[in-house]
């Protein structure tokens, strides 16, 4: 990204002067090809394909059920949104109010807990000296590759033992830590916290936890925000485990909309799409507020990988 922004002025002038001899090469040191009309066509197509399903979801949510089977598809919102919302929250099989509330509580608590525990462990693995540090660091990386969802049946049995089946904590506690989070925090601590700062705090008589709390946490804020957002999104989106362990009476929002989808009667598309819109809404808000940061994080992670 920095290369793009800092390098931009130079090639803008350079190729114009040298166009006859090296048009294909672009601008000398900075090689960035010019976009052709085909480039913009491809990008525009991508844009339309990415946005259309979301937009159409919203449009049907503002109309009646017949809009879902109209062709050509309805593209302009209608006036039925609030009536649909009312029906959605009144629907007895979906328990949508409970679902939304449960999802907000679960996603928020998992995000807070992941950020806390992962930054704590990441800090220890990055900066503290102790026996077995290398081993534990490798262990964290290994946990990232383990597909734990496969242990679904025993996890259900465990929930029975604990009496948590159907309770909200069953979709919170198992997700309170993440190997990805620990690893991400460790990398960030290594990059941002100089050893001198740690030493200075130690000499001032800070306990290790105090150093974490007053020196490390403030410096980690940007990474913590990103980890919190990613975790919130992931928990909000969680479907498999919620379906396995919760009940239709006490669902998460994703479970709620599946209840509408699998209704025994004729499926009410306007209702389903209104539910789907609500299930997507918090994620869209995050996207509009923090989208650029998330793009940066995904690209950053790619280079390290």
């Amino acid at each position, binding site marked *: 990204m920095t290369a793009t922004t800092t390098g931009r002025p130079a090639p803008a002038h350079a190729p114009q002067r040298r166009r006859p001899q090296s048009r294909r090469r672009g601008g000398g040191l900075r090689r960035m*090809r010019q976009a052709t009309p085909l480039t913009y066509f491809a990008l525009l197509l991508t844009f339309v394909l990415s946005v259309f399903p979301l937009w159409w979801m919203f449009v049907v949510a503002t109309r009646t059920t017949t809009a879902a089977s109209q062709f050509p598809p309805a593209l302009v919102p209608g006036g039925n949104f609030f009536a649909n919302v009312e029906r959605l929250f009144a629907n007895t099989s979906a328990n949508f109010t409970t679902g939304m509330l449960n999802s907000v509580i679960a996603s928020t608590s998992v995000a807070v807990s992941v950020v806390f525990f992962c930054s704590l462990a990441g800090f220890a693995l990055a900066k*503290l000296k102790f026996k077995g540090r290398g081993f534990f660091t490798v262990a964290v990386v290994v946990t990232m590759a383990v597909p734990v969802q496969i242990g679904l049946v*025993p*996890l259900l049995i465990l929930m029975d033992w604990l009496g948590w089946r159907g309770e909200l904590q069953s979709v919170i506690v198992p997700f309170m830590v993440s190997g990805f989070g620990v690893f991400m925090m460790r990398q960030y601590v290594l990059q941002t916290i100089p050893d001198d700062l740690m030493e200075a705090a130690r000499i001032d008589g800070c306990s290790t936890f105090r150093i974490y709390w007053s020196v490390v946490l403030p410096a980690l804020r940007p990474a913590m925000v990103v980890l919190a957002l990613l975790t919130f999104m992931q928990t909000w989106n969680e479907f498999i485990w919620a379906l396995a362990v919760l009940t239709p009476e006490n669902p998460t929002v994703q479970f709620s909309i599946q209840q509408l989808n699998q209704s025994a009667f004729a499926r009410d598309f306007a209702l389903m799409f209104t539910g*789907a819109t609500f299930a997507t809404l918090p994620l869209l808000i995050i996207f509009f507020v923090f989208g650029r940061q998330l793009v940066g994080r995904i690209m950053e992670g790619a280079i390290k990988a």
Partner: protein
Amino acid sequence: MTSLQHGAPPSPSPGSPDGAGPRPPGPRERARARRSEMLSKLDTRTSPYLFITPFFLLFGVFGLFPLLYTVWVSLHDWSLIGGNEGFTGLDNYVRLVGDEKFWNALYNTLGIFVIAVVPQLLLALLLADTLNRRIRFANLFRMTLILPYITSIAALAIVFSVVFGGEQFGLINQLLTALGLDPIAWQGDRYWSWAAIATMIDWRWTGYNALIYLAAMQSIPKDVYEAADLDGASRMRQFAQITVPLLRPTIIFTVIISTIGQMQLFTEPTIFGTNGYGGGNQGQFQTVMMLVFQETFDYQNFGYAAAVSWVLFLIVVVMGLINVWLTSRIKGAE
């Protein structure tokens, strides 16, 4: 502790009431100093372990234990209501080998994986190459790439199920009819149902992978291309012979991540279907994970579901190892 006083002279030590300058420490101060030194030693020794304990404890209880316990459950006759009803050895595995439904589910899972991931990664490469130019609204287009990735899987699976829809009413079939073509049996036909599910997966993940490839492309040194330019290599050749080979580690990374994810495919086909975990009236798009759910909840057969899960786990591990082995072979060949 002495170093502490040197390091922070301005703050008056709470131990000395008058706060006047350095003074030979009395026996009390010395005892206190020893105690705090011990405390600080205890702190530096135990804190690291305390800090990593929550992670390993929670992972152990809710991640590792269930995974290992799967093996134990799979060796028993275990039902939802009756609980453990006795050791049965490898019976569940014997049943699995002869179970057509298992092989069918595995075939579906692998099939959907292939027709989803191959076009997805190729498209992502092309998209990344398209974005790796001087373009207007670069940020807008990058944001567009991750828009599908951040949406709710279940919500969009519902939308796509309606887009594909039944015989007549789905948007795509209406479009086909308008073009004078025959509508497609998206639910009834095995391979068309795979295509519908693969579309949902690719809609979500293509942009995300493109973004990862774009980042990797931008870290390729520019002079590599300049040398190729001087040699007169065309753009297409540069893409095929420089960009793709240099991106190989990144591509392998995305393949491994996709493998782990797609072998556990569940949400899209479950929502696409209308018969619970059955995956279509003939099980034409029932995945292995859906079979696990069916055995667990519809037939309440925990033992068999655990055996299926464990075999799925082994398949994921083997596929991961094959990936790693291929990687090292390719590296060795160079």
